[in-house]
């Protein structure tokens, strides 16, 4: 993966011309063209910050700034919808530039997040760019990704959400935080990824068949959260992003500073967020507030032409309230809750306070990376990463014990990687590496409750190799990966007397994938992919045992589970027809043998809290297939229409019943009206959007406590504008979600048993770049 700014820099050529110019008679001229079509971009704004001098590109994309004194300047180039490009120039003579902007991606903007037209992978890649991250600062990672077709969110209220890609979530997908596999407690259905998306400049979803390069359990898809390399820019620059939202009276502030001085390049990012009780159309959702405080530090040092190193540290800290009315004691309580018009414990007043039930998560990551070039076309990467994850979950308990966590887990992981890459003649590329990791998971003995999952130490060793070849119209890719996992477990018995039971499991995983991309013409891309991957049973699937109050059931792990094996194939077709129509389509089919799932048993177990249904982890053969479609139509210069559709179906083939937690189909439409310039205001944009979510009809009555909620429709709108001050660029937006304040419940939100989803929400955001 390359990041956007290196791309922009690589595609930006400085063509110096010799000139006799002295004093303040220098000119900066240039042409702005579209990255993919090479067509000129007109009406782009060019702005030389130091002297507040501006120009607009003409119909051939040309611009001219004259009477400039020699010196060092910051040049901003912006175009409607595009991410603003900032260049640092040391001007001593007349200078001519060619700037290529990624106009294809901006065409769709965050309405439809378009694939970066990467030819370096045959896997389907979709990304959120910096603009869409900046204009969704109110969202957490999963909710942000919800904009991408084929990606849904499994939620436990609004604050706790995890991404579902092509029907798979949790341990079946891998999340990479700055290139490092995120190690946390992702087995939990109500555990959000422990990452602040605002530290990233780009968030990418690879809707693939098996990404071989990364250590993880992925049966297909991968999410990459990536900060940029620090731009080569000697002055301190930064960003300030603030939002306010009416629903929950939430506030958030994100600050970034960076500098690339002669000695070292550095960046510091900090985020603070706080919000109180959210509101459904008819009532407050008591105890649904959240608070977050994160920092990230990045240091980069170029030691020589062939040697550079970087250090990255991030700290993510959050406290999340869980709807008070969703805390239930037994099945009778659940049945009562299902029949309530509004949840128990609903209060007439808004509050910021977070009480039990709640979660507190702290995640720290330290990464040290160094890169050596062997010649110009081969290089070696070494990385070390350490992660410390602390998770505490609080329940409503007796005698003041609500302040003691009912679950308290510490996970410490270490990761070491050596990677080799080489670019050879005839477009041949080789990538290979070895990865080692150790994860130690410990229950902190402060809960007074039998642990839900046992303590363990997990060793994993993996090697991979990928070979690819690129020619003018074709790209091939083939790779393999082998992993060996050794897990040592120390559990506490359920039977009396309580004693320690030890297990040792060893697994081997072999994965392989291959793909081909064909570009018959530059604007059309066809890609096909096939992959085999396997996933080892996760700790909760093997050993969880006991009452899971949140789901009102007794969950029994099965120590005899074996690996699940997946075969997935994808076929994608994307491109543009003329200048008007852009589209992306992807069909996929995945078959998973020995798919592990929680099966309801024909059995109720009596406890002092009453009788509970029993669920056991079982294995079956499953298949998942679906379609993701996105398209934009340029109605006129200023008006665009966008449409996204995704459909997915999952089947338990052995029992011939549907798979649960499959996202229902949905259609997203949007109209975007853009005005490049009105007086001093730039990039004025109006958007109206609509999301229709179908009812999940593919569910049998015994598979759930209540039937899937009916279809719903959400209307939204957004206005955004930009203004350039001498050294600062200002972007202001106003979004409205659920304008009509409709009451609805979402199948993938586990709190749908208890309460309606969120009502209308106004979000005002201010982003400053200086």
């Amino acid at each position, binding site marked *: 993966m390359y990041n956007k700014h290196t791309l922009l820099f690589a595609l930006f050529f400085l063509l110096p011309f010799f000139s006799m110019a002295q004093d303040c008679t220098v000119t900066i001229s240039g042409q702005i063209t579209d990255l993919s079509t090479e067509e000129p971009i007109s009406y782009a704004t060019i702005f030389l910050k130091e002297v507040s001098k501006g120009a607009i590109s003409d119909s051939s994309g040309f611009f001219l700034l004259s009477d400039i004194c020699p010196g060092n300047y910051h040049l901003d180039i912006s175009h409607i919808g595009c991410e603003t490009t900032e260049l640092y120039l040391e001007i001593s003579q007349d200078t001519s530039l060619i700037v290529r902007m990624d106009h294809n991606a901006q065409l769709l903007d965050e309405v439809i997040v378009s694939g970066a037209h990467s030819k370096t992978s045959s896997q389907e890649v979709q990304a959120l760019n910096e603009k869409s991250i900046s204009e969704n600062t109110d969202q957490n990672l999963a909710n942000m990704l919800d904009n991408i077709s084929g990606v849904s969110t499994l939620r436990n209220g609004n604050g706790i959400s995890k991404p579902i890609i092509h029907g798979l979530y949790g341990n079946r997908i891998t999340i990479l935080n700055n290139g490092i596999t995120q190690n946390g407690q992702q087995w939990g259905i109500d555990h959000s990824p422990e990452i602040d998306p605002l530290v990233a400049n780009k968030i990418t979803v690879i809707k693939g068949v098996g990404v071989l390069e990364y250590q993880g359990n992925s049966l297909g898809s991968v999410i990459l959260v990536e900060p940029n390399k620090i731009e080569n820019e000697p002055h301190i620059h930064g960003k300030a992003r603030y939002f306010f939202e009416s629903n929950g009276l939430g506030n958030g502030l994100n600050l970034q500073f960076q500098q690339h001085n002669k000695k070292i390049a550095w960046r510091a990012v900090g985020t603070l967020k706080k919000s109180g009780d959210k509101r459904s159309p008819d009532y407050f959702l008591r105890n649904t507030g959240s608070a977050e405080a994160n920092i990230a530090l990045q240091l980069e040092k170029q030691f020589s032409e062939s040697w550079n190193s970087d250090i990255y540290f991030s700290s993510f800290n959050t406290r999340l309230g869980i709807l008070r009315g969703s*805390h*239930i*004691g*037994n099945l*009778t*309580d659940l049945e*009562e809750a299902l029949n309530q018009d509004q949840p*128990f*414990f609903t209060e007439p007043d808004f509050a910021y306070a977070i009480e039990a039930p709640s979660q507190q998560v702290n995640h720290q990551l330290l990464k040290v990376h160094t890169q050596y070039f062997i010649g110009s076309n081969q290089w070696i990467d070494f990385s070390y990463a*350490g992660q410390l994850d602390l998770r505490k979950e609080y329940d*409503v*308990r*007796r*005698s003041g*014990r609500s302040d003691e966590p009912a679950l308290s887990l510490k996970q410490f992981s*270490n990761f*070491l990687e050596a990677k080799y890459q080489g670019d050879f003649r005839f477009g041949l590329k080789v990538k290979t590496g070895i990865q*080692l*990791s*150790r994860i*130690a998971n*410990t*229950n902190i*003995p402060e*809960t*007074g*409750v*039998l*642990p839900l999952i*046992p*303590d*363990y*130490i997990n*060793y994993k*060793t993996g090697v991979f190799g990928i070979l690819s070849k690129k020619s003018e119209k074709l790209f091939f890719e083939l790779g393999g990966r082998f992993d060996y996992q*050794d897990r*040592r*477990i*120390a*559990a*506490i018995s*359920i*039977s*009396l007397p*309580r*004693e*320690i039971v*030890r297990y040792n499991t060893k697994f081997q995983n072999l994965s392989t994938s291959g793909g081909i991309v064909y570009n018959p013409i530059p604007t059309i891309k066809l890609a096909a992919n096939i992959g085999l991957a396997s996933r080892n049973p996760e700790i909760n699937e093997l050993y969880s*045992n*006991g*009452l899971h109050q949140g789901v009102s059931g*007794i969950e*029994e792990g099965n120590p005899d589970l074996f690996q699940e094996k997946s075969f997935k194939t994808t076929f994608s077709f994307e491109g543009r027809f003329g200048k008007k129509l852009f589209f992306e389509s992807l069909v996929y089919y995945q078959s998973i043998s020995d798919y592990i799932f929680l099966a309801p048993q024909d059995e109720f*177990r*009596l*406890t*002092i*809290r*009453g009788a*509970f249904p029993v669920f056991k982890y079982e294995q079956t053969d499953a298949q998942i297939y679906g379609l993701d479609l996105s398209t934009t139509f340029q109605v006129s210069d200023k008006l665009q229409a966008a449409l996204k559709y995704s459909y997915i179906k999952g089947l338990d083939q052995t029992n011939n019943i549907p798979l649960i937690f499959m996202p229902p189909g949905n259609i997203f439409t949007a109209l975007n009206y853009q005005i490049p310039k009105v007086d001093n205001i730039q990039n004025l944009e109006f958007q109206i959007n609509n999301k229709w979510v179908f009812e999940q009809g593919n569910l049998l009555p015994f598979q759930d406590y209540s039937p899937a909620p009916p279809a719903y429709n959400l209307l939204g709108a957004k206005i955004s504008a930009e203004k350039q001050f001498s050294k600062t660029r200002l972007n202001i937006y106003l979004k409205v979600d659920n304008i009509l304040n409709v009451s609805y419940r979402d199948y993938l939100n586990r709190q749908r048993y208890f309460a309606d989803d969120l009502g209308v929400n106004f979000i005002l955001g201010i982003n400053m770049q200086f």
Partner: protein
Amino acid sequence: MRQINRSFISALLFVCLLSSCKEDIPKDPVIPNEEELITTLYLNLMPGTGQLVTLSFEDLDGAGGAAPIIKGGTLAPNTTYEGILTLFNELEDPVGDISVEIEDEALDHQFFFQTDIPGLDVSYNDQDSEGNPIGLRTIISTPDSGSSGTLTITLRHEPDKDATGVSEGDISNAGGETDIQVTFEIDVQ
């Protein structure tokens, strides 16, 4: 110096990792003191004259694991019993008396009694500081004629004691979450 030591230890750890050392196993986990668990419930029924009746529910290993042992009882017709509920955590050593915890947090707890035996009447014989019932102490009177059925005892945590009917023992509007729900077989003869 300490930091250097630490990095040295982590380096060692990786050498260990490379050789996948056999000795690196999790330490013995601390077996928690499950002090909040309710393993045992007794309802002692004392008539003015006659035989003491004890209904009991025992699930010593907590939820899951072995099945609980439930003992119902036989009540005499046309008799008034004084009921005393006691709750224990027998996993604790010494045995924890949960009834004391309930009494201390009386405002946040209430027991409910439901039966399908016609004429079997349960009324509260205690109250919290706001004058609402708790249910640790009750008066139970039996019908004139013999019959059999069940008695279900429910303990709600943080119920809305002011909701309609709740202080009279009607559970429908109580809300809160269930901490105990046990059902006993009862014969009146």
